[in-house]
Structures are given as structure tokens and as C-alpha cells.
């Protein structure tokens, strides 16, 4: 006879209320699992989806994602000449915020050599890749743009010729791909007042250095370096080339930092994602602990409520395992039902969630296993109390 289920049937309201409450907490845990993995997936998406073997960045820098990195535009030419390098391409990226489709949206712009260079969009779900040197863009569908849509960035309007799905930066913001010159123009473009101020400052410097005003005016354009830098150079190795040797060569002879894709990934996980992951992990652990404590308290209260029945069971000769099983089954029933409802709630939450949620079956199973273990733990206090209850408690009025 299943005493636990019969007791649950009698206290159905209390069980349903507990299951609802715990399920809400657990659904948050499950969604946080999704945020946690989504955070990692977003964080490394661009690294994983940029078809390159090596990332060459500014010396002593951990760029281009964790730290800013600036390199001369033409540095890719000397890198391309390194033994073992099949192709080297300039690469630029920066975060921007603009009005798109009537709402203020944050996105990251990627600039790349659109004529066969590395770093372009991997999989275009609609349309085509950029084929013109200027004024075309590939945008992620998260921005709400469609083919033929036009976006004004700086002084020019750019036409969407291709749409990607799930192309995001490390913060989960959608990506826009532009040709390198367009990306640089948008990135370094200054307004007229800023340009005038820079010119005036440079002019004064030249005059202080002893150049007559007429000569200083002629030298001014040479001081402007805007648009001459990129953030990284992407390298594709020649077949059979040793990545370590090529990286060492670039480091030693060209004075840049070089990371393989795996190292760049590690930089991201250990850097920008570490704190976020730690916070999410802490919250997940806390919420699970709270859920287990709630289940423990409910199971304990339910046990105390039937302590006279437990004493009677002992008196009429019920073995201890009957009592232990009753309490543990109730605890596990609460845990399993709560998890099932939480899983259903998660499925309801996912479609409208504003961030990328990535669920791993193994992690969901691990959460379930932890909760099951918690359910067993939760029943221990009640079991301890029940086993200490003397059978003679059943006697008397």
C-alpha cells in the first residue's frame, strides 16, 4: 500500500501549492541554465564562426574581443608574407547604438575584406554576401531588418543584401557586416566641430615647433591617421603549416600578439565571461538550495502533522522502512512534480525571452539529479524525527 500517495491525495491542495511555488523557483534555475550556456554561446559565437586559424592583434593586448587592439591597416601585408600563412585579412569590429526600425538598438559592426577576405558572415539565411565595395550590408535578423532595408550609419545609407540568423557579439547583440572601408568610415567619422578642433590643435603644435603658418597648413593632412587602423588581422594557414611556429614567427619578427582560435576562446571564457558565469552559477546554486529547503520544510511539517499516525504504525508493528519510504516518496514526489512543472514553465518562457537561451540536455539532467539528491536530503530531517518518535505516543488521550 502506497501510504505516501494516499497522504498526498488527502493533502492535494497543500501539495499543489507547494509544487507551484517550488516549480516557479526551479523554472528560474532552468532559465538561468539557459542564460548561462547562452552567455557562453554568444560569447564565443563570433570566434567560432569566423573561419580563421590565427588572430593577430596589437602587441601585449588580449584583443580584439577582451581588450581593444589597434594595428596599422597594411600590417596584414607583412603578415601575409610570413612563411606558412596562406591568407591574411584585415578585420575591424566595434559596438554601436543607432535607431533602427524606430527603436534604439545596440549592435556590433564587423568590417572585412569583402573580396575574398576572411571574417565574413558564415551562413546567410536570406539574400547574398556583400558584393560591392560600398553601401551594402549583411545584418542579423534580430535587428528586424529584411532584404532591401536601408540603414543610415554616419553620412551614408546602407542596403541590406543578406540576412543571418543568430550572429551575435559576446554580449548577445546582433552583428552587422560591412566592407572594411565602410566600417572604418563609420567607425572613425568625426563631426565637423571635432574635425575643426583637431585641425586647430595640430596647427598650433606645428607652429610651436617653428613651422610658418603656410607650411603648417600644407602639413596638416599628413597628421590625420583616422581610418588607417584595423583591430586584428585574420590568418589562414597554408596546408601543413605549424600554427605554433607561424605564431612565434609573427610574434618575434612583426611584434604582434597571436592567438589560435582555441586560445582566443579561452581568453573570452576566462575574461569577460568568467564573472558573469560565476554570478549566474551562484544564483543557480542559491535558488536550488532555497527550493530544497522549502521541500524539506514542507515534508517536515507534513511528517509532524501525522506523527501520531507514525507512532501508531510503529505500535502495530510497521517496520521502519515503511515509514522511511512514506516520507522519502513524498519528498521525491514533490521534487519530481516540481521539476516537471518547472520544465513546462521553462518551455513557456523561452519563446519570449529577450536573450539567447541555450539548453544542454546533460545540464538539465544534472540539475534534475541535484534536485533529486536534494529531495532525498530534504526528507532526512523528517525521517530522523519520525524514527525517534516513540510508539507509546499512540496511546493515551
Amino acid at each position, binding site marked *: *500500500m502506497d*501510504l505516501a500517495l*494516499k*497522504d498526498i*491525495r*488527502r*493533502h492535494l491542495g497543500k501539495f499543489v501549492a507547494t509544487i507551484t511555488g517550488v516549480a516557479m523557483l526551479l523554472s528560474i534555475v532552468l532559465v538561468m541554465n539557459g542564460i548561462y550556456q547562452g552567455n557562453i554561446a554568444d560569447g564565443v559565437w563570433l570566434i567560432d564562426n569566423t573561419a580563421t586559424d590565427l588572430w593577430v592583434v596589437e602587441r601585449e593586448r588580449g584583443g580584439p574581443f577582451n581588450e581593444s587592439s589597434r594595428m596599422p591597416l597594411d600590417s596584414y601585408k607583412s603578415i601575409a608574407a610570413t612563411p606558412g600563412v596562406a591568407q591574411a585579412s584585415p578585420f575591424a569590429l566595434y559596438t554601436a547604438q543607432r535607431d533602427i526600425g524606430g527603436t534604439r538598438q545596440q549592435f556590433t559592426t564587423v568590417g572585412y575584406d569583402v573580396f575574398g577576405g576572411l571574417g565574413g558572415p558564415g551562413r546567410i539565411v536570406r539574400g547574398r554576401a556583400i558584393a560591392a565595395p560600398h553601401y551594402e550590408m549583411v545584418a542579423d535578423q534580430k535587428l528586424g531588418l529584411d532584404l532591401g532595408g536601408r540603414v543610415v550609419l554616419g553620412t551614408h545609407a546602407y542596403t541590406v543584401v543578406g540576412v543571418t540568423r543568430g550572429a551575435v557579439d559576446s554580449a548577445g547583440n546582433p552583428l552587422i557586416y560591412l566592407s572594411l572601408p565602410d566600417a572604418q568610415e563609420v567607425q572613425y567619422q568625426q563631426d565637423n566641430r571635432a574635425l575643426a578642433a583637431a585641425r586647430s590643435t595640430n596647427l598650433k603644435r606645428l607652429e610651436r615647433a617653428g613651422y610658418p603658418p603656410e607650411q603648417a597648413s600644407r602639413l596638416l593632412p599628413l597628421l590625420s591617421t583616422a581610418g588607417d587602423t584595423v583591430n586584428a588581422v585574420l590568418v589562414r594557414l597554408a596546408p601543413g603549416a605549424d600554427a605554433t611556429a607561424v605564431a612565434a614567427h609573427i610574434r618575434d619578427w612583426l611584434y604582434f600578439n597571436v592567438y589560435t582560435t582555441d586560445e582566443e576562446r579561452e581568453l573570452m571564457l576566462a575574461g569577460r565571461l568568467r564573472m558573469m558565469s560565476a554570478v549566474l552559477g551562484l544564483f543557480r546554486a542559491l535558488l536550488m538550495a532555497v527550493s530544497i529547503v522549502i521541500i524539506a520544510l514542507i515534508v517536515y511539517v507534513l511528517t509532524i502533522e*501525522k506523527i*501520531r*499516525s507514525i507512532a*501508531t*504504525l*510503529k*505500535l*502495530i*508493528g*510497521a*517496520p521502519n522502512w*515503511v515509514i522511511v519510504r512514506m516520507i522519502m516518496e513524498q519528498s521525491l514526489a514533490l521534487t519530481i512534480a516540481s521539476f516537471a512543472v518547472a520544465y513546462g514553465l521553462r518551455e513557456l518562457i523561452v519563446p519570449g525571452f529577450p536573450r539567447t537561451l541555450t539548453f544542454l540536455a546533460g545540464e538539465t539532467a544534472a540539475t534534475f539529479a541535484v534536485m533529486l539528491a536534494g529531495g532525498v536530503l530534504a526528507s532526512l530531517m523528517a525521517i530522523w524525527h519520525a524514527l525517534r518518535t*516513540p*510508539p*507509546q505516543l*499512540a*496511546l*493515551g*488521550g
Partner: protein
Amino acid sequence: MPVLEVDGVSMTFGQGEHAVRALKPATFSVDGGELAALLGPSGSGKSTLLLAISLILEPTTGRISLNGREVYDNGPTGVDVRAFRRQNIGFIFQQHNLIPFLTAQENVALVMQLNGAGRRQAARRATELLGFLEIAHRADALPANLSGGEQQRVAIGRALANEQRLVLADEPTAALDTERGGKVMALLRRIARERRSAVITVTHDRRMIEGFDTIYHLDDGSLTAVTRTEEGRREGRAIG
């Protein structure tokens, strides 16, 4: 042949100068078919004797034999006490103590299932037993929906579920009015006679005294007197 033999059973709580002698050595026996009462004021040792007989509390000294098997001889005899209780002793309580989330039939069947009976077999036998107790029509009711008398009948059914030869009842009529109490006493007598069980009832309910065969008087922890009632004399029981 006696179902229960109690020989010099005593109970002392605590040790040294703090020791409290709750029960002085008591010797008596109860036959199958006999309805006996332990009568005495509060604190006289009735419940202590009941707990000692059922081995819920381990006696300090003495010997207890049930169904011819020695279950205590100045110390445990290696009997699995809880299993032995389940198989041989039925309990009836003042407050009935039915499991509140089980129906009347399930309360009775539970004891059989604990003793190894299959679910269907236990359910069938429980229904038969409730029929014997004239309460089969309430088999599916939860205890909360039964009257006090009905609950006590179900509790009696539970005490008989494993055909226990010894039934111990703790104030079974205290919570009932005279009419219902009388019916319970009649039922206990019927059980003793028809099932040849020894029924021992702790009581200080003097309304029901005449219904017993033998009355053991307890006072201040001592078994002071044994009375054979008219009913007992008709049954031809000797005092012993």
C-alpha cells in the same frame, strides 16, 4: 491454555536515588477467549503494564510468554519485537488512531499487507472483517467521515486483521457514550469468545466493569486484587 503468561514483571524508570518503580512484580495469565480488565486510578501502572506486555517498553525484571513462546526472560530473547507485535498483538486505542488518509478498509488491510498479505487478498479479508464488525457499508469512508463508534469498530478490525491471539485495548470506551461503549464491550466479548483471543483492556470506566470476565486491580504500581465477575464465573474461569 493461557495465551499470555506474565511472571514477576516489574518496571523501574531511572537509576539510583532517582529510580521510580512504576510497576512492582506482577504475575498473572490470560486464557484464549477471556476478556480481562486492568482497573485502577491514574498513575496506578495500568498503561505501564500494557506497554510492558506488548514489549513497547522493556520490563526491568520478569518473564513474558505469549502463545507459548517466551518473548522476554529478564532480558530480550532475540525475538524481532516489532514483527512479533504485528503478528500476535492487536491494539485498540482510546482515540481510535486510525490512519486519517486511509479508508476504513485500507486501515484494516494495511496491517495484513505489513504482515505480507497481497493487496487483493488483504482487501478481501478486510471487507470480510468489516462485515463481521457490521460496518462493511462504511468500508470506503475516511476516518474523518465516520462516527466515534464506527471508528472504534474499524480500529477493532485492525486489531484482529492478522488473527492476533492477544488484543490490548487502552480505554476503548472512554470516548464513547454508555450505549456505544456497551456495544464496543459486547463486540470485544464476542471477539474473545468466537475467535478465542485473549482481550486485555485498560480501563477506569466503571460503567463497563460487569462485562469483563476478570478484573485485575492495580494501585500504586502493585497488582492488588483479582476479581472474577459473574460473567467470568459463568465461563468457569479460575483465578490465577
